[in-house]
């Protein structure tokens, strides 16, 4: 038996196919970026909704047999498969088995099948008792036909949808933070309800025609304390009415207490919840920008708004600055960009992230740069360097682009003094004024100008100034007329936006055909 199980585990361990299937199941169930999961989710949601719809329809109308069969067998079967899959991928029994076997061989002790299986199955059992697993199990139950009462468990299928909403988890999180207060209140409620329920039963069971059992008494107590008061059961004796008055008053007090506890819990967590939402929103877009530090530099950056900057978020460790950014109408969160935890919440795998380190401290900027690069090399970092002596450190840290405000401004002043007319020209080019817009034309594989000679490209016709070609990291200024354009060349041209667009549309005309 032991050998058989072990060899089976070994077989699974070696089988690449088994691993691939398991990985696929995991992807299907958990990988939010996988398109399979999306289809899977849509299917489940459809099954749940259709099943509930049939339940409602069935109340007043006869349902065709195939629909009934669909509801009972197809839906339940798929749910059962889903349940088993989740249970299966939750942990890995065969791996556990092999590990234990190797360990015991290493230590020269006897291999005990029992302990491994116990640990592995306990883990599975633990999963089975999580709320979502219980809901999944209950959603399968209606398949058992003889017990029609189980039909009501179809409603549990609706709870399956909760897996797809994050807000319910956040709600539960908030409740958990107030566990102590809520438990105290619950205990108090239980105490009052049972005392008054028993009291009314003892006092009025013989007199009141509506109270027959203790259950009636407890039901009355709950209805009264919650201030709902259906009125189907009401006290008839003076002493019964006195008890009612007491529970009504304590009920009001308790409800207001619960409300205040919940409100305070939510308001405490509100900013955090909002920030979670912002991060989630960011991760949904393919590329976004994180602006670290909301100082002069960032303000200026946002104020210029030369173009749509797309998705972005401002991050600052100073709460007052975050408030200022929000007041100015920008999306900002109060967090520390130099902490690994903060940045790793963003999905660097699937999104193109650009980080702008614009704080006034070089130490901070270097730290953020390193932090970003340690999470993923793909994150693009544009860092502000205040002290020119630290430039080397930034390059070591891996910053993609450096920004030296002092240096840039100094060069501008210097140019303004020595070459006043040039200053205007350079300033116009730097600020991208429409007539002096310097732009890049990226030559891709199917670009029409590929293979053409420089002289064949009539830049003059569209009133463009051709400056040169950027090829394999080098810039060729004013290339000879006979030079041919290659793939991945970047042509630098200057001119009005409309000229550029016209030129691009003229020469990119046939990419659509080729692609």
């Amino acid at each position, binding site marked *: 038996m032991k050998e058989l199980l072990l060899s089976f585990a070994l077989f699974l361990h070696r089988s690449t196919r088994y691993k691939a299937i398991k990985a696929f199941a995991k992807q299907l169930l958990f990988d939010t970026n996988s398109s399979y999961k999306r289809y899977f989710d849509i299917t489940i949601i459809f099954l749940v909704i259709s099943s509930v719809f049939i339940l409602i329809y069935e109340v007043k109308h006869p349902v065709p047999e195939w629909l009934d069969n669909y509801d009972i067998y197809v839906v339940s079967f798929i749910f059962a498969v889903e349940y088993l899959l989740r249970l299966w991928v939750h942990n890995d029994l065969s791996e556990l088995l092999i590990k234990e076997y190797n360990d015991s061989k290493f230590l020269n002790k006897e291999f005990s099948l029992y302990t491994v299986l116990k640990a592995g199955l306990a883990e599975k059992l633990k999963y089975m008792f999580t709320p979502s697993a219980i809901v999944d199990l209950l959603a399968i139950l209606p398949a058992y036909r003889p017990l029609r009462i189980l039909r009501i468990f179809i409603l549990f299928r609706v709870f399956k949808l909760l897996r797809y909403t994050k807000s319910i988890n956040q709600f539960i999180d908030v409740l958990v933070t107030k566990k102590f207060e809520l438990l105290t209140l619950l205990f108090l409620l239980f105490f009052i309800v049972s005392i008054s329920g028993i009291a009314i039963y003892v006092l009025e069971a013989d007199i009141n025609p509506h109270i027959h059992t203790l259950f009636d008494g407890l039901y009355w107590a709950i209805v009264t304390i919650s201030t709902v008061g259906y009125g189907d059961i009401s006290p008839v004796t003076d002493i019964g009415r006195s008890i009612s008055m007491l529970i009504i008053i304590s009920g009001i007090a308790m409800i207001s207490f619960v409300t205040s506890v919940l409100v305070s819990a939510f308001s405490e967590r509100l900013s955090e919840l909002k920030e979670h939402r912002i991060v989630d929103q960011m991760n949904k877009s393919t590329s976004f920008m994180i602006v670290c530090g909301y100082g002069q530099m960032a303000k200026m950056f946002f104020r210029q708004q030369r173009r749509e900057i797309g998705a972005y978020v401002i991050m600052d460790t100073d709460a007052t600055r975050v408030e200022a950014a929000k007041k100015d109408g920008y999306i900002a969160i109060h967090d520390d960009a130099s902490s690994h935890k903060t940045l790793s919440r963003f999905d660097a795998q699937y999104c193109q992230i650009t980080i702008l380190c614009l704080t006034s401290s070089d130490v901070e900027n270097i730290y953020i740069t390193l932090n970003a690069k340690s999470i993923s090399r793909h994150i693009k970092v544009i860092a502000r360097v205040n002290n020119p002596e630290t430039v080397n450190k930034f390059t070591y840290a891996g910053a993609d682009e450096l920004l030296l405000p002092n240096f840039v401004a100094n060069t501008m002043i*210097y140019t303004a003094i020595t070459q006043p007319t040039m200053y205007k020209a350079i300033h116009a080019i730097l600020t991208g004024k429409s007539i002096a817009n310097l732009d890049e034309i990226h030559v891709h594989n199917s670009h029409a100008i590929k293979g053409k000679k420089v002289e064949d490209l009539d830049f003059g016709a569209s009133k463009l100034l051709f400056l040169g070609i950027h090829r394999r990291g080098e810039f060729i200024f004013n290339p000879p007329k006979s030079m041919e354009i290659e793939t991945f060349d970047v042509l630098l041209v200057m001119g009005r936006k409309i000229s550029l667009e016209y030129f691009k549309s003229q020469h990119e005309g046939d990419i659509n055909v080729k692609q």
Partner: protein
Amino acid sequence: MSSNKIVIFGYGNHGKFIAQGLAEDGLSVSIVESKKERVDDAMSDGFTDVFLVDVTKDSALTKMHLDTFEQLVCVMDDVHLNVFLTLSLRSLYANAYILAISDSLNATKKLQMAGANKVIDLYEVSANKIYNILDKPIATKVLEDFVNNKSGITFKEMLIPPNSFLDGKMANEVDFSSHGVLLIGMIDEELGHTFVFVTAGISHKLDSGDTIVCLGEQKELEAFEALIKKKEERGVNI
């Protein structure tokens, strides 16, 4: 170049860089500082015309006879002082050319109101640069190398002398690129001393007295300048 005598107020972060750059270009630079240690710093960097002046006092400024200088550059590290200085200078010398640095949008406005002819906003240029890096990284890098003269390719202003071969030609008739230079734009005196980009699309007539701005390698630029200075030789087709 428009001036040969320049006063720089402040020898801090910016003043130091600018003064050294200008001195390398062979311009005469005077430095005014209100802090003793900065004055010493400037002295030890080799500047001889360094003055220790309390810039908040008009009497001290008048004594300097600043009207003999062509450009006054206000780059004090303290913004408040910078605005005050600009205002004092403007009230003392109505015709002076004043250049000032600013480190915020509000300060820029104040400096302009105080009468600075040109205000350079530290963060505005940098913010622009971020956009440029995001939009067109290669173009930005190349352009930066042009401006800082790192790649050997730079801008140059050239005055068209009378009887140059360019005199009277239309700008788009001349093939600049075969000379290894590119025409970026020109200062047109006909249009009232304004800088016009060649890409604006208006065909310009080049006249003597116009200044053209070209881009190219230093050597080629110098050769081209020499060429346009040569008297026109009729019949030679260029």
